[in-house]
């Protein structure tokens, strides 16, 4: 028997997909689907968040996530404010708890926060008594809206999530995208294989319900989704791998390797791509790539999250 459908989220904030149930994720994906229709209209605006204000608090540089959120907010008719601080040293500026107090004093309804420190959005949510917090990426912890847009993209392309074999390739250790995908995919019934050099696979990641392998062939074989993560080239200096050349030789995804995956397999990447490093351009630009669909779906998913957390849905539904 199908579980009763949710009409509203049970959580007040979106800190990570780890906390969200399968039903809540399903509700967000369904809601995003209907917002996709809005995005296709000639006038892409609905009044859902009229009179609400949203602050985009970006303590770490970001282009696409910030633009995507801002677009989502504007299309929902929210009033938006942007704060960007590229200064990485928090000690130079105001403490995060003081920032939170200021936000509270300004009667802000919703805060979208990107921060270099894992746990910062949770900390912020604990400091705020009324504003809604949406995590737009915290350190190597979670990037839940990225995870959700990835789920939506997979579901659109392959018609389902249950039973899919998803291969996440690359730097899992430093990736919040990987963690949010793992939680989301596991909850939706997909299988996840992570693959990369052992230095970039977090200790005991198997406890999150994934399989670990070090050979790209094993990861790609019969995969429905080939998800390449961005490799930070500065990891080379930290001795996580000896050279970019060797990384590409062992883990780069080219058309020959992609042959190992299922014929209908899709290729994904959270962007920005290091072309010729983790992803061969022939793959990135092929018909199997859904990388730009991910970007489009990002706006719809963020509209859904903003809508559902700011009073959308029927919270009191029996």
């Amino acid at each position, binding site marked *: 028997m199908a579980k009763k459908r949710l009409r509203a989220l049970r959580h007040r904030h979106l800190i990570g997909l*780890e906390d969200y149930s399968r039903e809540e994720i399903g509700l967000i994906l369904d809601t995003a689907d209907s917002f996709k229709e809005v995005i296709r209209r000639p006038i892409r605006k609905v009044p859902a968040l009229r009179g609400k204000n949203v602050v985009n608090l970006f303590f770490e540089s970001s282009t696409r996530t910030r633009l995507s959120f801002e677009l989502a907010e504007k299309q929902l008719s929210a009033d938006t404010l942007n704060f960007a601080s590229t200064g990485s040293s*928090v000690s130079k500026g105001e*403490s995060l708890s003081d920032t939170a107090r200021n936000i509270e004093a300004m009667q802000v309804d919703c805060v979208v926060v990107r921060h270099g*420190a894992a*746990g910062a959005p949770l900390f912020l949510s604990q400091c705020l008594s009324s504003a809604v917090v949406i995590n737009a990426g915290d350190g190597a*912890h979670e990037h839940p809206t990225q995870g959700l847009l990835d789920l939506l993209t997979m579901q659109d392309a392959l018609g389902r999530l249950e039973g899919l074999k998803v291969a996440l390739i690359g730097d899992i250790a430093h990736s919040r995208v990987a963690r949010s995908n793992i939680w989301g995919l596991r909850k939706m019934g997909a299988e996840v294989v992570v693959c990369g050099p052992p230095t970039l696979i*977090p*200790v*005991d990641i198997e*406890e999150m319900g994934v399989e670990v392998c070090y050979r790209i062939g094993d990861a790609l074989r019969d995969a429905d989704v080939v998800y390449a993560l961005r490799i930070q080239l500065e990891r080379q200096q930290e001795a996580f791998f000896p050279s970019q050349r060797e990384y590409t030789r062992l883990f780069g995804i080219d058309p020959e390797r992609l042959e190992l995956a299922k014929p209908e397999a899709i290729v994904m990447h959270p962007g920005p791509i290091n072309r010729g490093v983790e992803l061969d351009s022939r793959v990135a630009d092929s018909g199997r790539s859904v990388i730009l669909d991910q970007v489009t779906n990002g706006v719809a998913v963020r509209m859904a999250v903003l809508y559902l957390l700011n009073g959308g849905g029927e919270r009191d539904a029996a």
Partner: protein
Amino acid sequence: MRPDGPDTIGGAAGATGLVVVCNGRIVDPASGRDEPGDLWMRDGRIVDRPADDEARGAAVIDAVGMLVLPGLVDLHAHLCEPGYEYRETLESGALAAAAGGVTAVACMPDTDPVIDDAPTVKFVRERAAGAAARIHPIAAVTAGRRGERLTEAGELAEAGAVALSDASRTIRNPAILRRALEYGRMFDLPILVHCEDPALSAGGHMHEGSHASRLGLKGIPSIAEETVVARDLMLAEWTGGRIHVTHASTAVTVDLIRSAKQRGVRVTADASPHHLVLTDESLSTYETHLKVNPPLRSKADVEALRAGLADGTIDAVASDHTPRSVDEKNTEFQQALPGATGLETMLAVVFTELVRPGVLTLGDAVKALSTSPAGILGIEGGSLASGGSADLLLFDPDGTWTVDTASFRSRSNNSPFTGRTLEGCVSMTIVDGRVSYRRDAPESP
């Protein structure tokens, strides 16, 4: 600085100077005593029961239902003075100690200036004279804790330093530690080592394991501690010097110490209450009060530490009391400074978590908290034998309390046990025959 003057026990003590703690259960592992009885004191010393005539004039402290224990000796606390008085002072640290039943505290030299010369040792001793607990300074092994030049251990020992340690800094150059151990053989001062290879722990915020992986925090691997423990034990064995591994946190560390002891290496060790009770799993919400160094480890490590304590591999429990201000803790986890206060909770945590469940006998717990650390530091205390100093506490094993830092004597509130209900509470602490802490009587209906 003493909260209660010498006459607190009652003006009656004035006449003969005699005080008797009566009807308690006296537990003194040093003399193998565990029996109901009375304990007599005069002029700051424990004395034999005097003749009846004299005894009649004694002031009486009723200890019915109480355990009468030798005062606890903490061999690792950061009291932050001089230099970091906003976190703790010698006075507030001593008050916190007394509230936890601790009558003697060895304080770490990571102050500003560093306790690395005789005048600074004397400054600490003078500042702490008359405080609510005895304060024994630990001096640095190297000048400025820079790991380069040895401090003048001979003069430091004369000035009253009870041990040497570069506190939370590992002595990176093994040749320096070798010389310190060799040179130190003249003075019998233990060298307390914090074992952490900074290259292996760099950038880490919690124990490296599945929980760090899940939280997206860089881990501090167990081997960052263990490689240094192994090195330091080998150096101690080679030199014949005395080493004390403080805040042991991993199972392999316990094994390394156990086998070193079997080989006759002059090594002792302690573990902190939080490492004996809490695991990395408890960090699930980036709780900064649980950020400590070394980090809270796995369940298997906790089990190994407990086994090590029970079989004597780990000699002592030490608080590693590390006060931090609200601003240093109320921030992003990566930004928060590591450290936890512990003086006021140490005994009740050990009692609740180790004695009550049968991990340790009460006698072994008292030994680990009092007798052994006094022996390691070579200071008086840790015993209730006649002739010894009257440093003791009354512990109510049936009292329960909830940890609320608002009522703490410490200037800082970073307790990892906040909100926990603990069994057993310190009812009174006596230092040098004088009451230095008395628990407020519960309000009668």
